[in-house]
């Protein structure tokens, strides 16, 4: 038991939990300062999160978690290769655009195939958007952070422009609704979680969690990618083609974020691409998810679910006269504390080894 407690993985997991607790406490302080009388009620809503409305809340949690698990995977995957993919937003947007374009225009496709083609198109669009900074990084040593931030803006304005010219709904200043056949199948999940927007998106996300886990841990490709990420110099020494790996890593990351875009906008939840000059927040939330999940695919799955969970709590908090923005602040506080997880890790290691020593002496 002791050895299990002391293992590196357990300590890292516990430090993430501590970060979450510290973030929540900080959130409580925010609530107390902004509206003391309602603070405890609001806080209870956050804690209850997705469980507030029973089965419906859980379904909603899964729905919200789906795209951010994908963008989280995108960021985490690139991070394993030593790349900071801050461009998940742009890749997500391009994926969404491709999916919606196919969804609206390609109505000639048969029903079972239509949504699949839309998802694949999203993946390709996202991959393309990821490839550009990847190629620049590999062959011209352009910092991928700068390049992908620029790609975010190009992606956002290009999406607005293309929607404006092709599938624009003037009344609502947004994209036209996709054909019913392009929406993701529900596969009976809507009966399991009645009254929610859930569909097979969450299953697709889980599938990719598994795929990415296998790629990273079981294949020579993953071996190379992680080697490049952890020690570029030794990878070069081992004859690993780091340029190819950098490009491929960004292509994969882009593809994942692109699918995230498709899963959100093909959910049939009445969500359309707004023609606004705003970067998609799902990409940035992906960074938070990846950080909280320590870039580990399974960790990312749970981090995504957790953020989905408290986001639902945040919506419910409006009952207590809190702005939903408060929940964003609390999520930010949790991530902030997550960055301090090293500190928590140090404290935990010390505490555990201390208790061990004590046990030995007695």
């Amino acid at each position: 038991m002791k050895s299990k407690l002391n293992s590196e993985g357990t300590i890292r997991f516990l430090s993430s939990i501590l970060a979450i607790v510290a973030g929540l406490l900080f959130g409580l302080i925010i609530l107390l300062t902004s509206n003391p009388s309602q603070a405890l009620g609001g806080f209870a809503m956050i804690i209850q999160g997705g469980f507030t409305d029973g089965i419906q809340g859980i379904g909603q949690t899964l729905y919200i978690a789906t795209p951010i698990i994908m963008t989280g995977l995108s960021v985490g995957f690139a991070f394993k290769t030593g790349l900071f993919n801050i461009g998940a937003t742009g890749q997500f947007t391009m994926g969404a655009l491709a999916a919606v374009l196919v969804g609206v225009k390609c109505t000639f496709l048969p029903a079972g195939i239509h949504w699949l083609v839309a998802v694949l198109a999203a993946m390709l669009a996202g991959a393309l958007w990821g490839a550009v900074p990847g190629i620049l990084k590999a062959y011209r040593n352009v910092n991928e952070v700068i390049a992908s931030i620029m790609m975010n803006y190009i992606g956002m304005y290009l999406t607005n422009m293309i929607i404006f010219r092709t599938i624009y709904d003037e009344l609502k200043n947004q994209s036209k609704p996709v054909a019913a056949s392009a929406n993701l199948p529900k596969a009976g999940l809507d009966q399991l979680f009645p009254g929610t927007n859930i569909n097979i998106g969450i299953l697709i996300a889980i599938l990719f969690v598994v795929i990415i886990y296998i790629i990273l841990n079981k294949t020579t490709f993953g071996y190379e990618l992680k080697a490049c990420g952890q020690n570029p110099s030794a990878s070069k020494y081992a004859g690993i083609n780091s340029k190819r790996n950098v490009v491929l890593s960004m292509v994969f990351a882009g593809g994942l974020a692109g699918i995230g875009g498709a899963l959100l906008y093909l959910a049939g939840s009445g969500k359309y691409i707004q023609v606004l000059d705003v970067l998609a927040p799902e990409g940035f939330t992906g960074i938070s998810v990846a950080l909280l999940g320590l870039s580990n695919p399974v960790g990312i799955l749970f981090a995504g679910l957790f953020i989905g969970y408290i986001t639902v709590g945040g919506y419910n908090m409006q009952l207590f006269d809190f702005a939903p923005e408060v929940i964003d602040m609390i999520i930010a506080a949790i991530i902030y504390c997550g960055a301090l997880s090293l500190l928590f890790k140090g404290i935990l290691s010390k505490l555990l080894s201390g208790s061990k020593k004590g046990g030995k002496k007695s």
Partner: protein
Amino acid sequence: MEYVIEMNHITKRFGNFTANDDITLQVKKGEIHALLGENGAGKSTLMSVLFGLYQQEEGNIRINGKDVNIKNPNDANDLGIGMVHQHFKLVHNFTVLESIVLGRETTNYGVLKMSEARKKVVELSERYKFKIDPDAYIQNITVGMQQKVEILKMLYCDNEILIFDEPTAVLTPQEISELMKIMKQLVAEGKSIIFITHKLNEIKEAANRCSVLRKGKYIGTIEVADTSKEEMSEMMVGRKVNFIVEKNEQHLGEPVLEVKNLSIKSKYTGKNVVDQVSFQVKKGEILCIAGIDGNGQSELVYGITGMMPIDQGQIIMNGKEITNESIRKKCLDGMAHIPEDRHKDGLILDYTLQENLVLQSYYTDRFQRRGFLKFDAIKLYAKELIERFDIRSGQGENSIVRGMSGGNQQKVIIARELDRNPEIVVAVQPVRGLDVGAIEYIHKQLIAQRDAGKGVLLVSLELDEVMNVSDRIIVMYEGEIVADVNPKEITVQELGLYMAGTKRSVNNEVKA
């Protein structure tokens, strides 16, 4: 007898691991006291306790007969304890003077007042014949000079107890004997020195007494004059050690590696850091490149192995030109590379032992099938190599390499590179920082390669290694080859002159 330092029954544990187990160290005033032990014997831990970096769990420290409690390096400094670290702690774009006063600046209302400091530094420098320019920049002076700056730094703070942590590792023979003189002058003035090393020659030359540690335990303290080197090494390692590297008769074969007119330009200065270098390594030969660190040896090896692009020249292996081949192709053709910096180039520290052992072969059919790693095969292979090369670690093939000792990390690289059955082994300082036992082992492995008819190109800064292991020596100075000699026909002193650039027997100007 009055002791200036007494560390009595010091015990220091890290978790379950006891780094210092009841160690006693007593240093007399005015002596050079050597601290001898293999890597991991607990020398550094003991010194860190004395220097206030760690707190001991048991035992007490007395300085000048008084019990003291050293909680941090500032306390140590106040007690007059100074340390020259193995890796100098200097700021490269500071002048000598600035480096010396760093942390102890005299100021006048926040404005630096350097004139007093300058006077004191110049005085000290003259007293010890350091011939140091206080306004030279650290990055422009030699390693030997940098070390003198570190020594001046201690003297500047009026330290009475000086700790030298493996000070000779980076010096030429001439610089080493100079350092020994300085150390003797310092103790003659009443200072006391703790001299950490695992080189027995130096202890013989300089030290009065020597305390030996082994595996965290105190073995004993001896009078250096009454003890032979063999006895000391036996105390250190716990068994008899062969100093003479045993080699069979040489059977020279065809050249396996040829380098012709190889030049590499520096990215910063545009000067040739490797300048028109040509040589051959034959089958069954250990060719050693000697030289002081920073004379182009590292770049030369990087050029040969493909880690760095070359500007001119040809590399030929077994009669086939491989100048522009990729690193992996060279590796497949039979070039093994034991890199200079094992942490930077040789290992992926957060990978497990077994993952590191297949770093050069994970892509072969033996270890992968359709892109999926065969973990069973990898594990089996790792177990075999661990057994054969006696690689020790906490959790066998699943140990994270970062947590392993330096010697065992190096064994991982040696095992990986030599087991590929290479044609030529390029080894750069393969025994750097390792203890006598590990050095002996690694030298044996290199010689086994030679005896098996392979070529070995060995780059070394350690003269003992150069003289004992090699069949032929070439010396590099400022990027050029200045000597090509037989180790049996040359003295260490002569070699030192070549390394320092004051003598040359190969004339490169004619060729250029």
